């Protein structure tokens, strides 16, 4: 590859060190430096530095007003022995359990339906509308629809004779209501991702199986599901990680209430950091969340063999 003019023998003898340096740094080091510089600064200042700093802050007691005090691992000890941390973890896990199975199964069903009966891009576009809205809008929308006195759905339920439901206002129903809001927002999006996965399965596979007399359910279980696995794992991993970090819906609808019934972990961290100014304790909580998510992701990739495709 003729990248540079061939050096004369005089140049070679004069600049052996520079040549060696250049081959060590890589042939395109100088232009590469300019190309990666802005992104690397952004990464170093707003990703790498804060990641390290979060860890350091987690070993201190700091309210931002007085200098931080080193306290060792006591923030972690406090968190792990406090009922509020475990309560938040439990609420978060419960939320993931309400959210993910229903959302994933419905999205799969929807994707298969759309794939089977219509290739119209507009049907998919309409199903995507909730995803395109801000989660603040989605939260406000469901707060209004489920409003006990005036909400559309609640009046409808009352007409059907079930009586008005408190939804976001009751300790029993608040968390499922938050889950409903997010299922509404992400159902179409997940269905579209599954749809894209279905499109990549060659039609001949189905035709061959259909000739062999396989029924609808057999086709789905034996062909669709295994061939869809990479997309399924991707959607599951990203939506579980997202659910663990649910926040904006909580800010708009319940603020962690009533009676801490929707006090998910990120809300807990937010309050500790930005309302109680306990930066050290909040950072420790955030690191614990990170560890939980990391373990979870590794386990999921292991068990579901996400990287491999059967196709």
């Amino acid at each position: 590859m003729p990248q540079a003019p061939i050096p004369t023998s005089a140049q070679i003898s004069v600049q052996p060190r520079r040549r060696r340096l250049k081959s060590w740094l890589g042939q395109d080091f100088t232009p590469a430096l300019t190309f990666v510089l802005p992104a690397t600064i952004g990464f170093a200042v707003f990703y790498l530095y804060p990641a390290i700093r979060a860890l350091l802050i987690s070993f201190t007691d700091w309210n931002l007003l007085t200098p931080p005090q080193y306290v060792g691992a006591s923030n972690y000890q406090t968190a792990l022995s406090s009922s509020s941390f475990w309560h938040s973890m439990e609420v978060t896990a419960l939320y993931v359990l309400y959210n993910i199975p229903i959302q994933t199964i419905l999205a799969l069903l929807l994707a298969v339906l759309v794939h089977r009966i219509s290739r119209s891009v507009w049907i998919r576009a309409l199903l995507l509308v909730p995803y395109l809205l801000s989660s603040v809008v989605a939260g406000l929308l469901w707060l209004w629809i489920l409003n006990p006195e005036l909400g559309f759905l609640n009046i409808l339920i009352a007409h059907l004779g079930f009586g008005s439901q408190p939804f976001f206002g009751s300790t029993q129903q608040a968390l499922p209501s938050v889950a409903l809001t997010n299922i509404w927002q992400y159902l179409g999006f997940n269905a579209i991702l599954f749809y894209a996965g279905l499109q990549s399965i060659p039609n001949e596979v189905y035709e061959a199986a259909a000739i062999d007399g396989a029924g609808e359910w057999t086709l789905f279980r034996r062909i669709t599901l295994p061939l869809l696995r990479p997309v399924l794992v991707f959607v599951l991993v990203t939506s579980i990680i997202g659910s663990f970090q649910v926040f904006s819906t909580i800010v708009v609808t319940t603020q962690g209430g009533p009676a801490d019934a929707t006090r998910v972990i990120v809300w807990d961290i937010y309050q500790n950091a930005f309302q109680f100014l306990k930066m050290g304790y909040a950072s420790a909580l955030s690191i614990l969340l990170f560890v939980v998510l990391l373990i979870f992701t590794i386990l999921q990739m292991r068990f579901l063999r996400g990287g491999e495709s059967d196709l």
Partner: protein
Amino acid sequence: MTHHRRFQPGRVLAWAVLLFFMLFSLLPIWIMFKTALTYPKDVFTSGTSLLPAGTTLLNFERVLGLLSAHENYILGGTEASINFALALRNTVIYTGLIVIFQTLFSAMAAYAIARLRFIGRNLLFYMFLSALMIPQIVLFIPNFILIRELGWLNTFAGLVAPSILFGPFSVFFLRQFFLQIPKELEESARIDGASFFTVFWRLILPISWPPLATLILLNSIQMWNDFFWPFLVGRNSHVQVLSVALQFFQTQTPEGIPDWTGLMAGAALASIPVFLLLLFLGRRVVQSIQFSGFK
């Protein structure tokens, strides 16, 4: 297409189920617009009707700050001034700055990582990738502290700083594409004496228009709706973006009797750009999102 014909009888049922899902997805949005178009006092009686009792643009005028605070109060709103026109402007600035510069700088980095030979290239790439693994909240606490130390709270600088130079997904997404461009294309240009910068600007960026458009679209939707970070550092109304302004508007309304028509007008206003996007670029939006799953 044998299996298509085989299941014809189920098609009616399939369409019925699909229509139910469409209704589930779209009815709440219809109710948002219906409420936004209802007179504030009619909201208590409109119940399950699917049409507003009497259509009015009053609520939109209210939330755009076109009525005085007193008029607003009489109509059932709050005395607190709400100005979504300003929030709309702020959201345009926030989204525009981040999308333009993050895409450009990420494309530069992605090109170097995909094509140039330099020490630490793979290390740099894996470090960039690892940024995708860290939960937002872990970074938000120290980033908030840093922005506060810099005196950038409630400024656009503070709002855009963490995202303007680098986005892990953007770098990853574009690198995947740049790797697929045939090397011969650039090499012939390089032999003709073009620098890497010329090659990048004149060759790589123009032929990468489809993935760049996809990325710009995905990032625009995400930044337009972004809430958490602006909620932390951009609470002042001069820099408030729409999602934050909406949340503040909600907390300002009197306890027990929220200004639903005003809230829904604000929510509709925040959503209109996205609907326009879908209307004009529907196919492109759908394809971009379908593509985003195949990282």
